């Protein structure tokens, strides 16, 4: 059984993969997108973000490439790999199942 850390880490990974599904983004862009999408509820700690990005890259779920940002600066862009796409689908399903279960419990009490 996955313990709580895996869940925490897994959640962050899921969020990153989810934001990247829409296209290439740099690190700052990812944190900003998550903030926007969650209406400022979820704030990704940068200290977790970059390690998570490197971890995902290592696992081959995302890939990084240096490019030019809309502001005309050199930035590192992350994109989802095929493997990442599959992983995202899986993670999403299990997250839904989990959050659904939590929801059910909450509603029951």
């Amino acid at each position: 059984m996955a313990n709580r850390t895996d869940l925490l880490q897994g959640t962050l990974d899921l969020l990153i993969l989810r934001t990247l599904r829409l296209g290439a983004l740099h690190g700052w862009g990812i944190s900003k997108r998550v903030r926007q999408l969650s209406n400022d509820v979820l704030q990704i700690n940068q200290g977790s973000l970059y390690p998570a990005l490197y971890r995902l890259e290592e696992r081959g779920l995302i890939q990084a490439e240096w490019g030019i940002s809309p502001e005309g600066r050199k930035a590192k862009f992350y994109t989802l790999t095929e493997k990442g796409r599959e992983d995202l689908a899986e993670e999403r399903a299990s997250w839904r199942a989990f959050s659904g279960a939590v929801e059910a419990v909450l509603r029951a009490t």
Partner: protein
Amino acid sequence: MSIRNLFRRQVRDREMDAEMRFHIDMEAAELERTGVPADEARRRALASFGGVQRYKEEGHETRGGMRLEELGRDVRYSVRSLWHSRGFAGVVILTLALGIAANASIFSVANGVLFKALPYRDPGKLLVIWDGLEMVGVPEAWVTGPEVVRLRNELTSFEGFATIRSSSATIGSSAGDEPQQVPASLVSANFFQLLGVTPEIGRSFAAREDAAGAEPVALLSHRLWTQRYGADRSIIGKRVMVDGNATTIIGVLPQTFRYSAQNSLGSAADVADVYLTFADTLSRFPRGQHFLGVLARIRSDVGTPRALAELAGLGQRLNEENYGKAGFSFKPVFLQERMVREVRPALMVLLAAVGVLMLIMCANLAVLALVRAARREHELTVRRAIGAGAARIARQILTETTVLSLVGAAAGTLLGVWALRGLLAMAPPGLPRREEIGIDVTVLLVTLGVALLVGIAMGLAPVFHSLRADIASVLREKARSRSGSRVRRTLVLAQLALSMVLLAGTGLLLASFVKLLHLDQGFDARRVLTVQLMAPRAKYASGRPVVEIFRRYTDALSAVPGVVSVGATSALPLSAGSDQSGAYFPSSPTNTGDRQKDRLLVDNAPITPGYLRTMGIDVLEGREFDALNLDSANAKVVIIDDLLARRYFPGGNAVGQFMTLDGDSLRVVGVSRHVRMYSLQDFGREQLWVPHSYTPYRSMTLVVRTSVDPMSLAGAARNAIRGVDAAQPIISMRLMTDVVSDALAERRLVLTLVGAFGAAALLLAALGVYGVTASTVAQRTRELGIRVALGADRGSVVWSVLSEPARLVGTGLVIGLAGTFAAGRVVERLLYGVKPTDPLTLAAVALLLLGVAILAGYIPARRATRVDPMVALRSE
């Protein structure tokens, strides 16, 4: 870390820098857009990031691998975090400093004495050669003159053979050139060349300077040169009176030079202050006279086994030619081994003891580290939860313990310098190579190694524990992990078992020591003053004049008020100073007719009338020598010890019988009680006494029994001797009780140190048990409170807490008991009258440990009964 990794790391570093900078710039720009001033925006962006450096670091971590550069950061972090828990750090450093100091000082001694190479050229090739005369009970006898000649002529594997004989010499002869008695060595001319030692000033002996009729020349020790001649370099080439001969001083030896000539049966002789040659007329000496120490050097191009084989071959030939195939052989012993043989067992025991203590200390420190880790559990777990890898955490813990151990080692080494000084002050005077003992590079490296090992060892327990901690439950701040206490129990168990081993060793040594103290030594050392004299050759011709001057000294001393009786001997008890001779009792009823079997090698020493009475040696039958026996016409008498009397005259009629000693026929006039002549623990061989007139040695020790404190008569005794001959040098003046005490010095030191280590171990083990019980009580506060509230009686509450440490102690004792068999083997050679498995000692030690441990557990257990139920219930 590989170079490639390092290179990739640099690239990655640069990329990460760029990426982070980009992130912060974007964040700042965003903030600016919302109206924050540029400076403030940048500051906030940075703050929200929390320091670029840290994330870069954690970014690395996810890529795995150990990086040296991070060590510096880890160390800085450790120092900061330790500064916040100074109490913990202080206790650990203090414990370590004490342990390291003990370790470093003991190891310094062992290193200087046992391990360090001797300060001579290629010392591994130097051998001492003995005559092996096992058939007469002397495994290592001195070599005869003719044998040395054959060694030199017939063996090709050796660079040379030097001879050495310890002696003493009188330097100076007249007023203004005060006569002084100094230890001397008579050596062959090649002695220093063989050792590879060159004089500090002047020259060494030349090849023919030991030939018969050569001009007398001498080398001085650095000590004598500075003390007597004020380090005057012009002494070289001057003539000085040595034993009445005008002798040219040709050189002064370096300050560091030491050579302890070994006595055949006893300990090392005094380090010589004067080196003289003795005329190389070796073949002149009779075949049977074993009197030369032989130092040999194997040629550098010849292997040791070949050289030894060649030596053994000559030994075999000599066995056939000269010893009637009785079993003679040469006994080669490496110089270094010979020098340290007597102290090796004691040093090994000390090394083992300090090693065990270090292990116990490690366990203790590991427990402390574990407790600290438990306090930081939350912090560590959070760090893991936000992504710090297990390896990262482990490294952090290990860095911290290593920093601690290194600081402890530094403090311990400083303390060790001081401890070593104390150790050397307590060390027995006969400790070989004393001047080579010091804290040198080897000691520092070993200390550093030990410190690193201790640091890692004490960190392993918390690392192990932190890896197993359940992150989720710790974050919920609920469960207390059990794995920590399990590791801790194991550590305390190890402490108990090791303490048992150490204490068993201490107990066995103590039992031996007590046995030796209450031993029947055969003499009475109380209120006896000993005065060692040598009648100078220049003044007193050999024979009658020497006997006469000692008679006058004893008479003069007898007249001193407070003196009960006076005597003199050439060999004090416990001094290993006797001669050995072949004895034969022609009229003995136990003779078999086989002369080889009926003859016996016995200790013998000349004594004056009154010696036995003065030394408190009982005369069991017959009488002591009287003044008549000082006349050489009446000198052919002998007093034998009870061992000889029982062996040769079991019927009890020894007095009046005749015996043959080295060819002379002597009449037995008395039977004395056996005295220990070598050491307290060594019963020694059969012994007999002859009158001083029979063996008129010029070096004798006067013994004075007094009715008052003997030391108070020292001045009067000196005056009495000076009254007879004002120029008589006095070599030494000692209390006989000090002679006995010195014979126990090594044992006392070993016992004191092992005892101190044992006490420290006991304390640490008690602390371990206390800690485990106290934390059990703390964890069970609520439960115990409920029990007390429900009316449980004190006894059962105490027992419910105490049962666990009791089980722990029981198991520890059983494991430790098994370990004591190993300890017994290590101390075996130091034991006297006690078996390594002595059940009484082991039981006493087990009881002591049990008592102390239970007491240590009882203190917190009793606290459990005082738990206020209300407080306990509210504490959750």
